[in-house]
């Protein structure tokens, strides 16, 4: 299974040079870029761990690539994504999001069905990885 979240998950993994180009696009638009990682890739896991604060006032995407590689040293076996945040009025949310690092094996998700009355099924999607405690997943 390949996690398809983010803008470019159907393309081959981005190289550092390609990550640089995309991060620079965000910076040139005035968006603050940040790096986040997780070992719980559930589609509704909003809050990945922050690798430092969003890089406000950073003019150069090289700094973003540097931080990604620092993050990889510590969390290379997890998912890492780049987020671009737009603070302008009327948006004040994320403009870009793309994955820059994946675990070697991506076991994916299972569907848990709870059958109810009248053929209703209550669904839960659960990552196989989260059966292990945090820090021991994808190891």
């Amino acid at each position, binding site marked *: 299974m390949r996690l398809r*979240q983010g*803008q470019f998950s159907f393309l081959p993994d981005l190289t550092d040079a390609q990550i640089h180009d995309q991060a620079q696009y965000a910076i040139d638009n005035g968006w603050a870029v940040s790096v986040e990682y997780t070992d719980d890739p559930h589609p509704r896991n909003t809050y990945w761990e922050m690798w430092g604060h969003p890089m406000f006032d950073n003019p150069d995407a090289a700094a973003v690539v540097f931080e990604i590689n620092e993050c990889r040293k510590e969390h290379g076996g997890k998912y890492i994504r780049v987020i671009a945040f737009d603070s302008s009025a009327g948006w004040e949310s994320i403009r870009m999001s793309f994955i820059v690092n994946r675990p070697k094996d991506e076991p994916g998700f299972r569907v848990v069905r709870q059958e109810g009355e009248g053929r209703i099924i209550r669904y839960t999607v659960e990552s196989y990885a989260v059966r292990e405690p945090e820090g021991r997943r994808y190891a």
Partner: protein
Amino acid sequence: MLDQVKTVTDAKKRYSAGVMKYAQMGYWEPDYTPKDTDVIALFRITPQDGVDEVEAAAAVAGESSTATWTVVWTDRLTACEKYRAKAYRVDPVPNSPGEFFAYIAYDLDLFEPGSIANLTASIIGNVFGFKPLKALRLEDMRLPTAYVKTFQGPATGIVVERERLNCYGRPLLGATVKPKLGLSARNYGRVVYEALKGGLDFTKDDENINSQPFMHWRDRFLYCMEAVTRASAATGEVKGTYLNITAGTMEEMYARAEFAKSLGSVIVMIDLVIGYTAIQSMAKWARDNDMILHLHRAGHSTYTRQRSHGVSFRVIAKWMRLAGVDHLHAGTVVGKLEGDPATTKGYYDIFREEYNPMALENGIFFDQDWASLNKMMPVASGGIHAGQMHQLLTYLGEDVVLQFGGGTIGHPHGIEAGATANRVALEAMVYARNAGRDIWNEGPDILRDAAETCTPLKQALEIWKDVTFDYTSTDAPDFAPTPEVSF
């Protein structure tokens, strides 16, 4: 010409029983400056032969506000000058003999707060059948902030929709399940599963899928949500399918909406033909229940398409942003349905911008402040395919749902392959644009390169390479960006 016609101010003459020209009754006020709180309507009027355009404009103002065909003394029991709509400007339409643009201002107190039904009962009520006019078209409206603020606006809005879907920085992808009628629920869900697993964000019921003998609505909802959940697990993404809850009564629509919610759907769908009040009710329900509300504009072309008579789609778009839907179809420019680039840009701006400056070249006649009402997501659907991705991204931008129905399900290697082709084409094009490529000119190369590592895209580009829909539009703007010199 009635340029010299003045309102009769002598009360005795004004209110003596009988018939009087509308322009003399107070409905033509060429010196009037609209107040910031006035609702302004711009009509295209085509008077009957021999009917003066100023009198026609005054008649439209009169018939869409307080007037009747004859003088009534009961006017004098009211502050009637305030309640009369005022035609204040009449311009000939460029290059269209016999047609005129009439600007009419309405006092805000003529309208009930928060009711599209009330607004439209005046503005497009009796007046459209008025005999002295050959044809009448509502081209645009200026909605004052004081009035905009009485409406809920889109239940979710573009920003929160993206947050809920965890999807940023690219257009969303969708497909309408085909054939639109006749599939059983079990087979229907198969199409949903394959398309979502292949890379689409949404699938969609068509406008006339409600609850028919071949597929009753509960069955459809149950199989579709199985498909949505399976596809979500297969990809790790939030997925949705627009479950059409359109039905014969509000009670039935609420029941279907509640059932969709109980199954975990993120989105429901209604058709424009349910009417303005029903739309506003469902928008309120959607806001109260964290549901994205998709509106299919079924039926709109009966009154939006012809230039001389009806209501422009840009006005419908404004009403729907007030009414509170999240998604609305707005044209593709390049696909099989009506829409030239300049006019379509005007629609998209109405959907997505905080503020619309006047832009005659896009058919926008007034500055319009949306007063922080949420933004609507435009939906581009009808005859589009992966090979047009560079054109679609250039024309329509990022905040749009691109719906490839035939362009997904018609793929020679199946629905999942069709979906993947579209998603890869989209991601490659967004990537290239961000990386500084000139996608308008290099688009075909970018797609060809992306197809090197994606066989489904290669197949899609091959099969649909010659498909274009190049017909003259019936509804183009009246003003060119640079006015041509005319003699």
